[in-house]
């Protein structure tokens, strides 16, 4: 594979004696969008951090193209109120920042009018676009996005996914991102990796949706092309089980037979 940007070989991560991820093989290539999905606690963010080199893996290997430039959009960004920082200040902190890029990137993400606004006063959607702008300013060959659409409404989510797909084509970069909802992200994804402590299945979004292990994790919901957004909380219990939803799930596959999904419950791992 000539075009590879990043590879993980048999990567595992254990924390305090508990294995969170094991046997991960991951190839990220230029011009390809890979989406990681999986329930809460599946290790999506952990895998992302291993790919970024932020977490030392317990086992396995990380191979990246020499001099690889990564644009990273973290899941959280809390800027303390004590730090006076405008959006412009924030963007200029990008390593290797070039002033002539600022206008272009800001126009692309429609945040030009916000440049003098303090970071603390950006709305959720504005902050997401600001973080994406910062990631773009490092002229990335690989974009790593941890739940890029969180906090956006459905329209905003589709728009941002479409934008990410366009940016991929413009920059010819690879994209590795975490998503909660496969249906919305499908159109903008080349490959889906379904994660739950290990890689359960992977492949083209359509084929993954038919995969038994995907169905086991996410249940058989209404086909995506009929309804743009499906909310998974409407599951029924045919087996008449009377458990309360105490969310003490062990993430064994067997406990998910009834199609219960916490993936979209809005909690953050």
């Amino acid at each position, binding site marked *: 594979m000539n075009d590879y940007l990043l590879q993980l070989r048999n990567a595992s991560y254990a924390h305090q004696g508990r294995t969170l991820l094991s046997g991960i093989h991951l190839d990220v290539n230029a011009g390809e969008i890979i989406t990681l999905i999986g329930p809460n606690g599946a290790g999506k963010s952990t895998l992302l951090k291993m790919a970024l080199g*932020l977490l030392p893996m317990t086992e396995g290997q990380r191979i990246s193209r020499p001099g690889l430039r990564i644009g990273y959009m*973290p899941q959280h960004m809390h800027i303390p109120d*004590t730090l006076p920082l405008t959006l412009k200040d924030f963007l200029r902190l990008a*390593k290797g920042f070039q002033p002539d890029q600022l206008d272009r990137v800001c126009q692309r993400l429609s945040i030009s009018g916000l440049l003098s606004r*303090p970071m603390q006063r950006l709305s959720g959607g504005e902050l997401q676009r600001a973080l994406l702008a910062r990631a773009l300013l490092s002229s990335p060959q690989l974009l790593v996005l941890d739940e890029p659409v969180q906090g956006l409404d459905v329209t905003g989510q589709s728009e941002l996914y479409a934008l990410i797909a366009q940016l991929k084509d413009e920059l010819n970069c690879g994209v590795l991102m975490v998503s909660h909802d496969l249906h919305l992200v499908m159109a903008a994804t080349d490959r889906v990796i379904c994660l739950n402590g290990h890689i359960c299945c992977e492949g083209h979004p359509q084929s993954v949706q038919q995969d038994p292990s995907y169905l086991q994790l996410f249940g058989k919901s209404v086909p995506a092309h009929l309804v743009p957004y499906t909310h998974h909380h409407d599951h029924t219990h045919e087996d008449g089980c009377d458990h309360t939803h105490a969310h003490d799930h062990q993430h064994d596959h067997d406990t998910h037979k009834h199609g219960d999904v916490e993936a979209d419950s809005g909690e953050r791992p």
Partner: protein
Amino acid sequence: MMWLLDALLAGWLLSLMSGPLGSFIVWRRMAYFGDTLAHSALLGVTLGILLDVNLNVAIVLCAVFIALILASLQRQHFIPSDTLLGLMAHTTLAAGLVTLSLVGNVRIDINGYLFGDLLAVNRDDLIMMAIGAAVVLVILSRMWKGLLAATVSEELAQVEGYPVARLRLLFMVLLAVVIAGAMKLVGVLLITAMLIIPAAAARPFSEGPKKMALLATVLSMVAVLVGLTLSYQFDTPAGPSIVLTCAFLFVLSQLGSKWFVPKAG
């Protein structure tokens, strides 16, 4: 009168360092960390006397050593960070006081080290402080962008290729230099005040990080001038007088921010 001028110059040199570094302390929520390093300075002094090395060098080395111990202790999860900092602060202070009493043959003014002793500022100290301030400011201006990026988000900075771990260590060394410099002026127990109060007072009037660092420096210089004058006038201890002036400026800034700065909203 000459000693007053020397003290003023020393205070201003300190302000040049403590303004920007204190801003970072506030942004990074490291006030207790600074306090712990300051408490360890007394241990540095006694070790310096025992081993007969330059006291400033001894203070810096001791503070860096404590910072490294803290960094390694913070990797375990059973004791929260603030407990750990309190533990180290008072252990090192106690160790400093005990070793000081064991160094029998040297007469040392403990009060001078705890609360500052302006009469002890001599020309050699001034030269040391000038060199220290120059080095700190040059290094800080070179690492400014990376340190600020790491303050905003350490993970993001690391992914972008900033040497985050090295910046953190370097910041601790700079902090140690400031503490060594501040010790004679305001004393071990009041150093943190010089770092955080001017920065806190500057915050409401600052739109950007550089402005805040600059304004903190100016406020700190004003506090040194006013504090020293009051101390001379009313024969009060200099260090506490400077710190009280800082606090007064902080109160003014809080009141002023209500009237002059439009409410963010």
